[in-house]
């Protein structure tokens, strides 16, 4: 596998292990995001969110 240097992005990570409380909050936030995604797809399939002509 070849690699290409990405000069556009800088990545960051936690400086130490995260707490159980932080993990819980992150999980909750991502769960909400996932629910919104399901609603978005459902809106398209139900015809309430469709491209404008």
């Amino acid at each position, binding site marked *: 596998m*070849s690699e*290409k*240097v990405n000069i*556009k992005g800088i*990545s960051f*990570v936690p400086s130490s292990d995260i707490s159980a409380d932080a993990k819980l909050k992150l999980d909750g936030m991502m769960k909400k995001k996932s629910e919104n995604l399901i609603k978005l*797809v459902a809106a398209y*399939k139900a015809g309430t969110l469709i491209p404008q002509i």
Partner: protein
Amino acid sequence: MLQYTTNESNNSSHFFITTKKDSLHMLSFTSVEEEEIYFNNEFLQENVLQMTIARISEQRETYCTSLALTIKGIFDNQLFKTDNLVIYLSVESDKWKEKLITRYILEDSNDEFCCYSIQIDGYSFYFFFNRDKTNSVECLSSIFKYFKTEFNIDLIKLHKESGDGVIPK
């Protein structure tokens, strides 16, 4: 670039992209609602647009370069339109969406396009911006404050030997 159609209103924009194999993807940009995400600082709360990528079709065709480039083209237009705009995306690490994102970063040729990514415990949080339009220092400082205040997480730059700045091709 692939063909796409749109649905735009005051606080959201949706783009419907059809690939050459008729797989449909939706790219959505919405204002951040405090009840959904509270950044707890003015810069992010005022300037962030939250992005969502959804595959509508059952058919899996998410890795094609043209899709990545089309999404990136839509991105650039959004970022160029408004000063200090930051596009925020949260995804599970190592899933198709993250692979698509790394692809459009890799294939990108716009020098103004930049992103900060935060990797935490199986999740990836991306903050994209146009460095000529958005104050990158204030943006980074606000991101650090957000993770510290909201999650009590101090962030450090990922070291090069751990993969910083290198994306598999």
